[in-house]
């Protein structure tokens, strides 16, 4: 009997030891599963939990709560993104829609947006006509794109996330050539701003024009960009990227806006519109080491941003607003500060000079599909910063798990010292289908 038991144990052991080895050798590939269909669709469902410790004394906490901020906030968010396309002959219809619902201790919020929905007409590989809402994503920068003249601003903390586009008509022409100039491509876009159409782009009742000329000259990608119209002022851009070695890429962007304007809090406390010529630029690199560590570094000069002195004035205004409100209940200064915050001092990266650094290590210690990383965004003028270590695991097919911590550091009257959050812990689980 013991010998039978031993044989049984041995058999189980052999089966478990051998099956994976056989399994590994069984390769099959049924091509019928991947036949092209007219209708293709997919997307992801996401669950996110965030715990945020609030910096109760910061300017943006006071502004948000009129001097009565909470100490922490827990938020659950569920997101569903659906994308797809329908192809018939030379016409393809594409769409991406996203909906989310979130609950925290203070409120419930939900929203649904059409990120893009457009028809592409492609009579030849050389030409495409796009009609509808589309995301363009111009520029070579990873965290910021000064030349993204017809794009919404990116979130440098999540630069790879889908964004909402604008409604317009675009024509794309491509020509490949022999010789050092290998490719020439011209993209032109007409972008109207009417009632209920692209209203958040700029002034209404205008049709704006934008163009991008792309050149692949030798091994360098070059874009020349231009925008004109009455919704925003005319602007010009140039970007390039190239590989200096198999593991070393550099890129740069420069945008020039001859007539730019911004809301400014002056020394005497009044609000003025400052008009100036704006030259914003970005210099970046991407470097891969032999041990598979990817480093992205970008320097961003934001001519649209505020100097340290200008930001100090705003933070002082919020401090004064809180004193006035606590003493008398008068919220006049809070109202003024809120108005200045919107689209001006309250924008993410409202300063002048930034350094972005992101280091990720692919599959360390032979842990397949595991990628730890660290992202830093530093305001070089006031030396405040955010630091975000993270870990991403994609080992389960179609699942992505990301754990991220964000730590914000800075003295008072500095950008990151006056943000609403002190730190944040975030767990995100995403399932692709």
């Amino acid at each position: 009997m013991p010998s039978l038991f031993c044989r049984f144990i041995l058999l189980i052991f052999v089966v478990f030891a051998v099956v994976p080895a056989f399994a590994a050798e069984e390769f099959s590939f049924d091509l019928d599963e991947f036949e092209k269909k007219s209708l293709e669709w997919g997307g992801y469902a996401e669950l996110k939990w965030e715990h945020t410790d609030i910096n109760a004394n910061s300017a943006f906490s006071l502004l948000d709560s009129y001097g009565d901020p909470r100490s922490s906030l827990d938020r659950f968010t569920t997101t569903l993104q659906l994308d797809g396309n329908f192809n018939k002959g030379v016409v393809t219809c594409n769409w991406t829609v996203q909906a989310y619902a979130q609950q925290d201790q203070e409120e419930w919020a939900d929203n649904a947006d059409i990120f893009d929905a457009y028809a592409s007409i492609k009579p030849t590989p050389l030409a495409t006509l796009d009609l509808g809402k589309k995301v363009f994503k111009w520029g070579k920068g990873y965290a910021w794109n000064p030349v993204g003249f017809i794009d919404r601003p990116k979130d440098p903390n999540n630069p790879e996330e889908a964004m909402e586009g604008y409604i317009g008509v675009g024509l794309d022409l491509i020509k490949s050539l022999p010789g050092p100039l290998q490719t020439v491509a011209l993209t032109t876009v007409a972008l109207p701003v009417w009632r209920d159409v692209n209203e958040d782009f700029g002034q209404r009742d205008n049709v704006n024009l934008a163009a991008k000329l792309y050149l692949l000259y030798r091994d360098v990608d070059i874009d020349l960009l231009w925008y004109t119209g009455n919704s925003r002022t005319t602007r010009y851009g140039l970007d390039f990227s190239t590989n200096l070695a198999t593991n070393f890429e550099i890129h740069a962007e420069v945008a020039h806006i001859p007539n730019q304007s911004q809301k400014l809090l002056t020394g005497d406390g009044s609000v003025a519109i400052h008009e100036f010529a704006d030259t914003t630029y970005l210099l970046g690199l991407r470097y891969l080491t032999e041990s598979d560590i990817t480093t992205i570094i970008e320097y961003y000069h934001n001519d649209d941003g505020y100097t340290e002195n200008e930001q100090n004035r705003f933070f002082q205004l919020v401090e004064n607003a809180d004193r006035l409100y606590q003493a008398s209940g008068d919220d006049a200064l809070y109202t003024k500060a809120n108005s200045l915050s919107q689209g001006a001092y309250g924008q993410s990266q409202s300063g002048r000079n930034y350094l972005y650094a992101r280091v990720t290590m692919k599959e360390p210690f032979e842990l397949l599909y595991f990628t730890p990383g660290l992202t830093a965004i530093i305001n070089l003028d006031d030396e405040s910063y955010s630091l975000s270590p993270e870990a991403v695991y994609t080992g389960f097919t179609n699942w992505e798990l990301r754990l991220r911590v964000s730590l914000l550091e800075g003295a008072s009257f500095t950008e990151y010292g006056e943000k609403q959050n002190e730190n944040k812990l975030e767990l995100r689980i995403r399932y692709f289908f």
Partner: protein
Amino acid sequence: MHKRAAFLLVFLVSTVLVTTPVWAADLDGTAILRQVDTNLQPQSYEMYRKLINIEPDGSKKEFVLYSVKKGEDKMVALFLSPASEKGRSTLRLGDNMWLYIPNVGKPIRITSLQSVVGGVFNNSDILSLDYSVEYDALNVIEEGDSYLLELKAKTNAIAYDRLKMWVNKKVKVPTTIECYAASGMLIKTLYYKETKDFGDGLVRPSVLETDSPLYKGYKSVMIYAKITKKELADEVFSLNYLARVEELR
């Protein structure tokens, strides 16, 4: 006189026989390499492949790719599966490589040494051009029923500095390739297996396996399901076209 003539004849024949192995050894590595390329794939084609990463415990992760290639240095690969990667495409023009991710919405430059799929295969394995385009044959010797070619990268933009390629003498396709860094370190070994008739005269291995001392116990496999000739416009191989590669299928 007859004896003399007979001696001369014997001497000549002997000389020929003795020197013949020397001629055989004087092989043209470049010609063999070109023949290998011709036997592996047509100049312009479309192809379906499955990539399988196998972990030491036997668990697998699979990717399905659709690729098109034109001429010596133009290639595009599109991920069809799994859903998390679907729609991603990679473009290679000579030494330049870009990755397009639908959410990101614009192509970014990548390097040949990176891997968009994880595991042992890197981008240069997935977007591999003809060997004779990337490598010079430095030396060739005979080893049993194989030729052993020693190859050196033409530029430092190529992922592997040197290759040792064993080529089946009879059918002139590779059986094993060792890939070395400039430092002399063995990065990985590729094994071509299971010859299959793909039609139109193309008979070649249908499975490519790889392992690496850098990933002990891990293995990656590439299965070729379909390789057919296809005429393509040059403009298909441009950044502006990357979002539309699916339309070529």
